[in-house]
Structure formats: structure tokens, C-alpha cells
């Protein structure tokens, strides 16, 4: 009996020790990260962790010693002391001092995290169900960043890729060594933009703008994801940041500016049905599909069906209005700032002619541009 109990204690001790040592290995712990602040945060994390380990050894040591030493089966006779003021004062004061010691560096780090002044550039990050929109302020460059993992992989058909659920069609590209102010907001519900290796997690609140900042030290690709429950596809809303040398960043930005201008071209001409349908299917597949589903059946009652929707087919003006301005008090966002007129016209045309919605309507980009200008 006695040996067995001893074995149990030894085993439980070992069970505790294994994960603790394992935690120091990479992939088990908070990443050190690639910014000065993420290093500071990691330092604080390890400091408070070791403080806990030391206190744990003392407290659990005394605990298990008492259990072992003062077992009745070993003939222990109880003493009857019930108070000891000095001891009680000591173990109130000592933890207090330890806390003050850790609060000082924590305060300094927090102050640095809050100092968003003197940034070299600004990126506006907007959360949407379920993607991110990145806008380089003052640069005329903005784009959406969607999950790039194929749906078949999620459904278990086909082998999952290395960056399963942590890959996007267009990553946020940032220059190394420049201080970037991040402005965060949301078009619908609360999201939270998080990249562990940058040490940044900040909520994106609908109707409010939050601030954070980052200065990346090393080039590389850094992956994270939305951290605040934001509805059905919360788990499918990755963040990918690509940090590149400043010169490369400037070149990339110029390229993007030219590409964006080109994509918005064609407002002045008449678009054919095929062109609109092709572009519309593409837009639908990246933007609308998450709520309204690939087959247009939606997910009622929150996300209505588009396929066979009589109101939609009968009332073209309302359809356009809904996509441009959204529906107040519902989950339907306004797309006037997210998509360009060509994309809006194309996706409306697509929705009016796909899945058996045979209205034959074509909506022209020029009409949308006029409607938005009103």
C-alpha cells in the first residue's frame, strides 16, 4: 500500500514536469516574434511564467510534503495551532512585493505599445464577415484579403496544405524597419486582428477606430487569424503579413496603384453579358459566397436566399440599392466603398442571371458609378 502511494506521487510529479520542460520547445510557447515589442511581451510572459513556477514549487512542495509526512497511516498525530500572525503578514506582503516587481516592466511595455505617434505610414484595416480589407492611407491602394484554402481541403477531400487555413489570396505587404500605424475598424460585427509574431492583437469595432502600431525587424511571412468570435466563418478569416525590404515595398505599392486604376477602368463603355457574368461570378465567389452560399440558397433566416428570390428578380432598383448601401439593422453590409463600380455591376448582373434567376438583365458599371455619385 505504502509503496503504491509513493509510486502515485512520483508519477504525478513526473506528469507535471514533462509538459513544463516541453513548453520551452518551439511550437509549444508564445513566439518571440519579430518586433521589439513582441520581444518585450515574450520577456514579460517568460518572467511571470518563471515566477509562477517558483511559487508553485514552494507551495506544492509544502503541500505534498505535508500530505506525505503527516499521513495518519504513518501515525501522525494532529497538532492544534490555528493562527500565526507573523506568518500571515509575511505571506501577504511578499506576494505584494513580487507583484510590484513585475508591474514595473509591464507598465513600461504597455506605454510603448500605446505610443502610436510618429508613424511613417498608415494602414486602415477593416474587418468584414469574413475577410479583411487593407487600405494604404493616402496611397490609393486598397484590397480585400480572403481565405485561400480550397473548400475541398476543409471538407476533408484532398490533402491539407502546409498553411491550411492560414493562407490568403492577397497578403498585407509591409516594409521592414518603418513604423506603421494600424487603424482598425469593422463594417459589421467585432473582429480582432491578430498576428502573434508581431505582438499585435487589436479589436476592430464597428463604428469606431482603434489604433495600434508595428515596426517589423525581419523580412518574412507572418500568419495569424481573427481572434474575436464574429459569426459562422470566424475560424476561416486568416491574417497574412508579408514583410519586405522598404525598396521592394515601394515598388510593390506603385504596381498595386497602377493595377487598381486598371481594374476600375471601363466605366464609359457598354459591357456585354458574358463579360459581366464572368467578372460577377468571380466577385460572388470571393465576397458573397460566405453568406449566400455557392448555390445562392443562403442560410435563412439571417442570410436570405438569392436563388429563386422573387423580390430580387422583380425589383432591380432595390437589388442595386441593397448591394451599394447594405440593409440597416441586418447582416448585409454596404459595398460602395469595398468594391468598385465594375465589380458591383458585374455581381448584380450575375445574381440576376445565375441559378435559374433568368431575368436577362444587364447592369452597367456606368449606371452604378452614377448611382454612387448621387
Amino acid at each position, binding site marked *: 500500500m505504502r509503496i503504491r502511494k509513493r509510486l502515485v506521487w512520483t508519477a504525478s510529479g513526473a*506528469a507535471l514536469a514533462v*509538459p513544463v520542460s516541453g*513548453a520551452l520547445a518551439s511550437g*509549444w510557447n*508564445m*513566439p518571440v516574434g519579430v518586433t521589439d515589442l513582441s520581444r518585450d*511581451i515574450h520577456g514579460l*510572459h517568460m518572467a*511571470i511564467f518563471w515566477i509562477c513556477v517558483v*511559487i508553485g514549487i514552494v507551495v506544492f512542495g*509544502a*503541500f505534498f510534503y505535508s*500530505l506525505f509526512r*503527516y*499521513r*495518519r497511516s504513518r501515525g*501522525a498525530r*494532529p*497538532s492544534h*495551532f*490555528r*493562527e500565526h500572525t507573523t*506568518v*500571515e503578514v509575511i505571506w501577504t506582503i511578499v506576494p505584494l512585493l513580487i*507583484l510590484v516587481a*513585475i*508591474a514595473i516592466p509591464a*507598465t513600461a511595455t*504597455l506605454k510603448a505599445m*500605446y505610443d502610436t505617434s510618429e508613424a511613417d505610414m498608415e494602414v486602415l484595416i477593416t474587418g468584414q*464577415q469574413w475577410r479583411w480589407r487593407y487600405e494604404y492611407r493616402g496611397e490609393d491602394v486598397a484590397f480585400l484579403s480572403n481565405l485561400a484554402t480550397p473548400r475541398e481541403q*476543409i*471538407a476533408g477531400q484532398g490533402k*491539407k496544405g502546409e*498553411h*491550411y*487555413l492560414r493562407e490568403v489570396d492577397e497578403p498585407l505587404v509591409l516594409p521592414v524597419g518603418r513604423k506603421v500605424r494600424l487603424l482598425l475598424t469593422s463594417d*459589421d*460585427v*467585432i473582429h480582432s486582428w*491578430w498576428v*502573434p509574431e508581431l*505582438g499585435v492583437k487589436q*479589436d476592430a469595432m*464597428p*463604428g*469606431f477606430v*482603434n489604433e495600434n502600431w508595428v515596426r517589423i525587424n525581419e523580412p518574412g511571412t507572418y*500568419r495569424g487569424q481573427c*481572434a*474575436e*468570435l464574429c*459569426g*459562422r*466563418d*470566424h*475560424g476561416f478569416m486568416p491574417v497574412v503579413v508579408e514583410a519586405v525590404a522598404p525598396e521592394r515595398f515601394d515598388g510593390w505599392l506603385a504596381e498595386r496603384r497602377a493595377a487598381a486604376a486598371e481594374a476600375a477602368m471601363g466605366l464609359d463603355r457598354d459591357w456585354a453579358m458574358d463579360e459581366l457574368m464572368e467578372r460577377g461570378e468571380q466577385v460572388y465567389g470571393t465576397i458573397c459566397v460566405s453568406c449566400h452560399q455557392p448555390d445562392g440558397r443562403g*442560410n435563412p*433566416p439571417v442570410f436570405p436566399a438569392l436563388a429563386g428570390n422573387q423580390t430580387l428578380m422583380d425589383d432591380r432598383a432595390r437589388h442595386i440599392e441593397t448591394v451599394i448601401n447594405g440593409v440597416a*439593422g441586418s447582416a448585409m453590409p454596404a459595398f460602395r466603398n469595398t468594391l468598385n463600380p465594375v465589380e458591383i455591376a458585374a455581381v448584380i448582373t450575375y445574381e440576376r442571371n445565375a441559378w435559374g434567376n433568368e431575368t436577362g438583365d444587364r447592369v452597367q458599371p456606368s449606371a452604378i458609378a452614377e448611382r454612387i455619385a448621387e
Partner: protein
Amino acid sequence: MASHLPPKSSTQHSQPASAGVASQAHEAPKGLKRWLLTTNHKEIGTLYLVLSLTMFFVGGLFAMVIRAELFQPGLQLVEPEFFNQMTTMHGLIMIFGAVMPAFVGLANWMVPLQIGAPDMALPRLNNFSFWLLPVAFTLLLSTFFMPGGAPNFGWTSYAPLSTTYSPPSTTFFILSLHMAGISSILGAINIIATILNLRTPGMRLMDMPLFVWTWLITAFLLIAVMPVLAGVITMMLLDINFGTSFFSAAGGGDPVLFQHLFWFFGHPEVYIMILPAFGIVSVIIPTFARKPLFGYASMVYATASIAILSFLVWSHHMFTVGLPLVAELFFMYSTMLIAVPTGVKVFNWVTTLFRGSITFEPPMLFALAFVVLFTIGGFSGLMLAISPADFQYHDTYFVVAHFHYVLVPGAVFAIMAGVYYWLPKWTGHYPNLRLSQWHFWLSVIGVNLTFFPMHFAGLAGMPRRIPDYALQFADFNMVTSLGAFLFGLSQLLFVLVVVLCVRGGEKAPAKAWEGGEDLEWTVPSPAPLHTFETPPDFQPRRH
């Protein structure tokens, strides 16, 4: 389920010879009516405990669905929409249906017995507060069958996901939470009235067993914060159905307002679920260490300090919402401060064991596991208090690990310790020793396999409330799921132990545990339906 838990009045309660005289010659109704109409604190306590156990298994079933889906990467069993309903309902059912009613049930049974009172101060109110709950939870669970499904926005119900973007069933969820809230407030009033008015002559407040003390403080917390919850969910109701904009910036409101109000309720709520656990453990450890509780007075003061501090720390749940720097600092410091009284409690428990004469009966096993595993949850809590680091921990599995460590091997183990401790008093039999030990060890192993790897998954970057995850989290999740299945299955053993104990087993004397010193051990086992009809003699032994 075990509907014969308490002693039947007809067999146990010896009527006085002059039974025809009005004094207590009431005809006890039989069958369903007996339970529907009962005003007896022991029967109501049993009802609460049976409801709690039922809800523990309902909420546990949801957890099993979650863990089965997360067993490996990819979507296998459920749609993300349903997954979100599972996480939401798991949280709601476990908090409001399993843990809180369990503590109220234990209070109903044991507070009158520990203070030498004949019953609760307000017996009819007691009946009403219980019967609100089955109605509330039937309504809550019925939302699964409504169009759009059950609430899917997490138990924290952050607006506007829970208002503008919520399924139509949210209104029913609000109503059911209102009912559970009223039940809690009425129960708390009853407990305060009982403790302040019905103590046996000679028992001062500072003579009360710690379980009674912690419940007194908990009851004040309940009265303070349940109305805040009622307020915030009513604002949700108005935003959803009556066109107000409390939480919508478009109408001049603010989603962060929701979080401030919710956590002003939510943080004290956390302590509502742990203070009575402290009380149970503080009663059990001295019994099996055969030594008085070390630092009784400082235990009481520590409990009160924790309760007061709990009103000053709510924004530590909101470090990433964009609070001003000053607020971050204030809430970081105040949160770290909570470690001090909590530490005092742990040190006192350990010192109570020091130079005792310790035995390891099932209630003691659970109480000892509580001390160790709750402390681990306390350590991760201290880490979470460090605001800069919390920017990395927040909303990850590290947080999930933290609060499950304080709630499962914390609150739930304390409840089980209490059940094992008082079962002999309730049923007159000891629980089967061998089965209880199996239940304990499987639970301890299961709980650690489930929740320990969550720390690593969270630190490595896995957010909470996701139905599918990146491949680097696969190993942690598989271990966690296996642990969860083990833990879930071992709880069936608990039901078996309780049922067997109700039906028979080794007979327990009045003083079922040799070291038990409180008043409940002076009445026969099983406790007759009516006890302490005349106040018992009480000799203060602590001071």
C-alpha cells in the same frame, strides 16, 4: 434520475404523539406533487442538485460534440453554424444550469444544518426560485428547434453579433436568462435572510463554518450583479426588437458599452462560482486533516476582499478593445492585486494540512486536487493579468485553459467533494469507496489531459471558438479531445456512485466523518426531513 435522494417524510419523520394537533400535522403530498409543492429545504436542495447533475450532462454532451469536431483538422461532424451554437450553449448551460444550481442546492441542504436552523427563512420563495429554473432551461434548450437555431454568439453575447446579427431565438434566450436571474436573486435573498436570522443562539458570525460564510458573501455578490445582467440583456432585447441603438454606433451607441456592462456582471459572476467552492474545501480539509482550519479569520477577510475586488477588475476581459492607457494600467494593477487574498487562501489550506493527521477519503481526494489544480488556474490567471502579455493570450485557448482549470477541477471538483462529503448525511450510507476512487483518479487524469494541452495550443496561437484549425495545433487538440472523452465517460461513474449510495451501502452514523465538527454531524444520518426544530446547543470552538 435519482428521485429518491432525500429521506421520505412518511418513514423518517416521527410525528409527535399528539399528531392531530395543528403544530406539524400536515399531510405530505405524494408523488409529483410532493416535489412540486415542497417547501422543505432538504427536498428543494435535492431538486437543485438533480437539476444541476442533469444540466451537467446536457452541457457535457455539447462539450463532447465540440471535442469530437476538434479531434482533427477539417470539418467532419458539424457545420460551423452549429458548432457556434454548441460553444454558446455549453457555456450557458454549464454556468447557469450546472455550477450555480449545484451550489444553491448544497446551500439549501447544508446552510440550515450548519447553522442549526429548522429550514430556510423563506420556504415558499425557495420553492419558487427552484421551479423557475426548469422552465428557464426548457425554454433555453427549445431554441435549438427554432428557425435559425440556438444562440450562436458565445455565452458572452457580444453585441452586435448578439443583436443585429443574431438568430431570432435570441429573444427567447434573453427571457430564459431573465428567469434564471430572478431565481438567483430570490435564492440569494433567502440565503442571506437565513444566515443572518436563523443561526442557533450563541453562534456569532465569526463562529460560522466557512461554507456558510462564503455563501453569505456570494449571495451579496448575486444581489449586486444579477440585476446588471438583467439590465444588459434587456438593452439587447430593446436593440433587437424595439429599434434602440444602445450597442450600435450607427444610432449613437457603442458595442464596448455592452462589454463593460456584461463584465461588470461577469467578473463577480466568476467569483460567485468559486467562493462557495472555497467554502466547501475549507470545511473538508480540516475534517480529514483532523486539525482546525488555519487562519479562520483571515480566510473570511480574504473572501470578503476577493468579493470587493471583483467589482474593480472587469475590464481585464477587455484589454484589446481599445481602452485608454490609464484604464489598462488600473485594471492590470487591480487584477494583480486579487492574487494576494487568493494566495492567502491557498497558503492557509496548505498550512492546515501541515502537522495534521491526514487521511484520504473521497471528499478529501477531491478537495486536495482542488487545491493543486485551482492554483494552476490561479497562476495562469496571474499571467493573464499582465496586460501587455494579455494582448497575446486574449481570446486564445490559453484563456480557455485558464478558466476551465478554475471551473472544472476548481468549482466542479469542489462540488463533487461536497457531494461525497455530505452524501452519508443525505442518504445514511457511505458512497462505495472503490468506485469513488476510480471516479476520482479517472477525473483527475481526464481533466488534466483535457485542459493542460490547451495552454500550449493557446500560446502557439490557436484562437478560441473556432470549428477548424491550422495543422500545427492538431496534436494538442487530439490529446485534449481524448482527455475530454475520458473525463466525460468517468462522470457516468459519479452517477453510478450516487445512485448506489441512495439505494444502500455501508451505514453511516450521525458523525459520518471522525473529524467533522460542524452541527450537521449532530443530527442522525440520513438527516430526518425536519431537523433542529428546537435550536441546538452551540459551543463556539474557534475563538
